[in-house]
């Protein structure tokens, strides 16, 4: 399919623009921080030369934070795009469907069971898997709540997601009461959604999970296009609908869970980004790619806001995305026919 949403302008042009914007945003976020560094210092520190303190700040703190923001934003947006395609609902996203809440429960439970101390390198890979299990449980419960007569009722799905989200919040609070005060505080800080704990190890882990999710989802792009005509018509076009749905749910849950396990609950990215780039993409292959780039750019920008709005104090990036996302969601809701 010629990926031309806007006539004559192929999607790769938009992808190139978004990629350039992402690079500028990442570059910008390397320059700013509590310690003032000149652009030249940042540049040489990036390649390991110059002042040792600058090298540590740039390579151990600022670069991981920027890259983690990009990966988390990209993973959440791609997860949202896949869920929207699966459910035929432009209002679907991992946060609203309870996937993020389930992932948070799984992650917290994993951490409480001592699945690697947080911050240790191994935990970067293990905790997302615990989150993934939690996300899968949430998906199953949401699906059970929304199914009627053996079929998934798309209308009930968001309601079911809201209920599972509330349940997940309750379980999180319940689990939190088991930790000691210091641990509880660090968990709460994580839950609110923050990139402050970025480490090179977390970046590596998330890069692996994000790549895995994309590798699973990109081959399904054409099936997603067909699903826009409804599951029945897609089936008559030779799409193995049930297999596509299972793989896509797994991949979307994995992406959201890996993001949540690393940086807590950051809402609305998965909802807004696919919606914003949908007009630029002619089909789902372009939509998935543009969503990743757009989500990455949005979260790096949101994190810059979170760090600078009330500097030197830092607000949670989850609060920033929710402050931007909730009104945008209401506008979308009202705009629907």
């Amino acid at each position, binding site marked *: *399919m010629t990926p031309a949403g806007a006539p004559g302008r192929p999607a790769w042009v938009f992808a190139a623009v978004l990629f350039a914007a992402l690079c500028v945003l990442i570059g910008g976020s390397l320059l700013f921080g509590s310690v003032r560094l000149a652009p030249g210092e940042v540049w040489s520190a990036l390649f390991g030369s110059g002042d040792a303190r600058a090298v540590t700040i740039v390579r151990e703190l600022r670069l991981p934070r920027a890259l983690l923001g990009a990966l988390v934003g990209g993973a959440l947006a791609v997860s949202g795009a896949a869920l929207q395609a699966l459910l035929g609902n432009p209002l679907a996203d991992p946060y609203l469907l309870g996937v993020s809440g389930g992932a948070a429960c799984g992650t917290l439970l994993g951490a409480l069971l001592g699945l690697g101390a947080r911050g240790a390198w191994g935990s970067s890979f293990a905790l997302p898997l615990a989150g993934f299990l939690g996300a899968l449980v949430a998906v199953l419960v949401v699906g059970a709540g929304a199914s009627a007569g053996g079929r998934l009722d798309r209308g009930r799905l968001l309601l079911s997601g809201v209920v599972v989200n509330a349940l997940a919040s309750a379980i999180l609070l319940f689990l939190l009461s088991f930790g000691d005060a210091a641990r509880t505080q660090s968990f709460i800080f994580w839950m609110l959604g923050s990139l402050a704990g970025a480490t090179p190890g977390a970046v590596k882990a998330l890069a692996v999970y994000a790549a895995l999710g994309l590798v699973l989802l990109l081959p399904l792009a*054409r099936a997603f296009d067909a699903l*826009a*005509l409804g599951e029945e018509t897609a089936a*008559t*076009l030779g799409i193995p609908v049930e297999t596509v749905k299972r793989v896509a749910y797994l991949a979307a849950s994995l992406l959201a869970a890996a993001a949540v396990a690393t940086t807590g609950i950051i809402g609305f990215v998965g909802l807004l980004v696919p919606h914003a780039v*949908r007009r630029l993409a002619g*089909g789902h292959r372009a939509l998935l790619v543009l969503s990743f780039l757009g989500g990455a750019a949005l979260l790096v920008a949101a994190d810059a806001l979170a760090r600078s709005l009330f500097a030197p104090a830092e607000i949670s990036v989850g609060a920033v995305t929710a402050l931007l996302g909730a009104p945008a969601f209401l506008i979308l809701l009202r705009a629907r026919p």
Partner: protein
Amino acid sequence: MTAGLEARGLSAGYGAHTVLSDVSLTLARGRISVLLGENGSGKSTLLKALAGLLPPRAGGILLDGRPLASVPRREAARAIGYLQQGFEPLFPMRALDLVLLGRTPHLGAFGSPGGGDRAAAEAALDEMDAGALAGSDIRSISGGERQRVLLARVLAGGPSVFLLDEPTANLDPRHRFLVLDAMRRRAAAGSAVLFSTHELDVASQGADDAVLLAGGRVLAEGPVGVTLTGGLLSRLFAVSAHVASGPGGRPLVSFGPPPAR
């Protein structure tokens, strides 16, 4: 007269609800059949079951003499073109891109449509008098225009068995004939066609055969001259039906209110 698609003693339904019972019918290649029945009589369910979307609870479906269940997925998708009833697009999509989706069974697993696919899609749009809509968002065009784009999607796939659920819904008279002509060309080229409608003029002018469905069972099946009779149609729709001889000897049906009892 060879059978394109055949149902033998077919029963199907949803969950605990059985909709179709013991339906046997033959869709012959080269002929157009119309599916008639009251709301809820099982027309859409029958079309879905014939398209392989509902597993039969009893009986079976044969595609060119082979059990449909044993035909590979892609091969069945190429052979059978299905048009669903009513479609509300939620996402923006260009009409041409929607029609190109009809080429899906002809593409490799990860392939993209090529020049031939594009040509087939454009030809199908033109045939449905919708060439000018190619670049339009399907959410911004009228219901009748969207119906023609959806039909073009089926035509673009080049199937040899057509299962169309109310293909002339929302269409003005000129475009109804356009659709009937397209079906006639496909039948003349050896396709089997089954379509449902509530428009008896469309049925009598467009179809060779009729399948009358009542309560999930076949009330009558056969050439329109035999099946579209006052007696059968009165029974089928529980109204009084009068049939006169219309242009070309085709039955001309008019309905009146149910006979007083």
